């Protein structure tokens, strides 16, 4: 278990700046997930923490020790790679033991730790196999096992589940969560999959273009996204955005959409300003065209069993998604109405920053 502090960490590759002044603190035993679209710098940030990349500027502190100039080997961290990076010419046992041998640990201690990790991950019968004789899920376990035997201060996981099929991913996700609890370890996990981030994280760090957009618990990010990017990135299906103009309505300030007024309980809305209203598909409700605030012409109906996801086009041509509970029949081309409940609306200003609720 280790405590990690990043202060104004930046990274440049030549003239390209991929990380801009990252400030972050990861506490002991915390499970932090870096999430963001590809190319946002999340993997680079992880590799910089690992010591595989040198920070161009800023400070990296592990347990209050400045480690900028400490090599990856001596930072006491372990990493699980996206491709697992198991040594193909070594058996599972050798793969697990390699790191321990390099730190000149006595043989019996190595064996003890390897067996312990193998038992924990249920890979005991596989110890003498080569990586190519393992399935994807088994390789994944070995890769995690290789990190566990090291008893690292922090586990760094770089998209570890992205090579697994959907079903196995869910299983491994649960196992990772259980493992985190059991080891009480500090883990930093990189993914582009917001579902993984939501289910695993104690705290999520949303990155875009080398900058931290927001840090918070999964629900904080879901309920109070700091900006339009986070709002769109967290939550599935994506949040809907409607461009509008702030106008005076009966009970304060609101918007006028399709001739219908909707008051907004948010502060700091300047009258006449361009704003963007965000509404999650699960917050909006489906009704008839006449009752709804926004009429939709359905373009796609996804029957998921427990709910029905409706994709439609507004009269302005924007795509809008809404979830209807249960199984109801809709035809493509059918017109429905959508009601926007005021308390579930997010409002963003012209720069995309969220406006606080009143």
């Amino acid at each position, binding site marked *: 278990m280790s405590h990690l502090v990043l202060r104004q960490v930046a990274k440049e590759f030549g003239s390209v700046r991929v990380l801009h002044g990252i400030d972050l603190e990861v506490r002991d035993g915390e499970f932090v997930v870096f999430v963001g679209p590809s190319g946002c710098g999340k993997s680079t940030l992880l590799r910089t923490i690992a010591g*595989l990349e040198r920070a161009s500027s800023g400070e990296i502190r592990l347990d209050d020790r400045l480690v900028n100039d400490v090599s*990856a080997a001596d930072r006491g961290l*372990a990493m699980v*790679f996206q*491709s697992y990076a198991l040594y193909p010419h070594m058996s599972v046992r050798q793969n697990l033991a*390699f790191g321990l041998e390099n730190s000149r640990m006595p043989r019996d201690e190595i064996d003890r730790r390897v067996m312990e990790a193998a038992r924990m991950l249920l890979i005991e019968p596989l110890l003498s196999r080569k990586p190519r004789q393992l399935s994807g899920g088994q390789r994944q376990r070995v890769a995690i096992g290789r990190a566990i035997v090291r008893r690292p201060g922090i586990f760094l996981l770089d998209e570890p589940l992205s090579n697994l099929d959907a079903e196995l991913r869910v299983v491994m996700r649960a196992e990772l969560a259980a493992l985190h609890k059991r080891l009480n370890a500090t883990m930093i996990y990189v993914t582009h999959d917001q579902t993984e981030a939501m289910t695993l994280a104690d705290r999520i760090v949303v990155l875009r273009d080398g900058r931290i957009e927001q840090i918070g618990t999964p629900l904080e990010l879901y309920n109070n996204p700091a900006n339009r990017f986070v709002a769109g990135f967290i939550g599935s299906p994506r949040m809907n955005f409607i461009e509008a103009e702030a106008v005076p309505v009966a009970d304060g300030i609101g918007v006028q959409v399709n001739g219908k007024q909707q008051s907004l309980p948010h502060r700091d809305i300047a009258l006449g300003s361009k704003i963007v209203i965000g509404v999650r598909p699960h917050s909006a409700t489906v009704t008839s065209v006449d009752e709804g605030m926004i009429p939709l012409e359905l373009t796609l109906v996804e029957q998921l069993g427990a709910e029905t996801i409706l994709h439609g086009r507004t009269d302005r041509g924007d795509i809008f998604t809404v979830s209807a509970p249960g199984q109801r029949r809709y035809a493509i081309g059918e017109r429905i109405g959508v009601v926007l409940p005021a308390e579930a609306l997010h409002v963003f200003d012209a720069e995309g920053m969220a406006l606080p609720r009143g």
Partner: protein
Amino acid sequence: MSALSTFLLRRRGGAGWHWTDVLAYVWLGIGLVLMFGPVLWLVVSSFKTPANLAEFPPTFRPLDAQVARVQGYDQPLPLFRVMLDDGSEKVLAQVRRVGIMAQMVDPQNPGAVIRVPIDKRIPVREIKLATENYAEPLQQFDFLRYFQNSVFVTIMATLITLVVNSMAAFALSKYEFKGRTAVLGIILATLMVPLSVIVVPLYLVVNSLNLFDTLWGVILPTVATPTGVFLLRQYMLTIPDELIDAARMDKASEWQIYWRIVLPLAAPALAVLAIFSVMWRWNDFLWPLIVLSRKEHYTLQVGLNAFSGELNVQWHYVLAMTVLSIVPVALIFLFLQRYITAGIANTGLK
């Protein structure tokens, strides 16, 4: 037998002979003759006597004139099949030849000398393997010594080649440093410099290092090969960087990364380079000839050269020892054939 015939008569798809089948077999047949004809000729000829070798037109089989000891003559006399005047055929021994007449005796009745025109007689010959072609140089000349020298040079040069080239390839493929492409370019550019161009400066270097007339003087200048560096580098580029990152996280030193991760994973390319290096060093002639001056330091190829005198070439010895000198390389090829083809296919080298 039936397995062999089905193998040899294997055809494309159906039962009939398609014209492409015929073409393929003709092509393969030509290839077989082109590839194995000279080798077969070499092996067969190495068992011929000097007289048989000098014959024109040459015979394919190693034939040897038959001789018989005849009472009253000290030397064994060559036997001939003679067509006598009365039309009968008889085997006679030739005593001497005078002009176009030969004086011959019947081995069973050595008293009477029969005069026979030389165009009426054909030498009696049998297939005989002249194994003394092999035995004599192995006893009289120091061929085993040459062989040992060659083995030593080949093995040491190959080992050092593998280590040195793989280190260079590792650095060039896995480390980012200024001038990396320039270094690689320079290394590759040396491919265009033939040995004959640098032979004099190389000789001066070797001489001033006191390596002249030593086996190390043969070995050391050859160990850094641009081909090897390039081949290994191309292969190592295919080793994922994540593996090396993983090893770094596993507290492996750079040496351990090289020795325990990269080298085992580059084994197919190393095998290819090893085979090439063995062939190059084993067949090397010019450079050892320049460096080595004392006979006991000769390698096989240089030693073989000793059979070519200024006036006379002892072809029978040259041929026999050439056969011996290609046996090790042939054996290596035989056993490593699979790795060679797979390795060459993988490394993209032809």
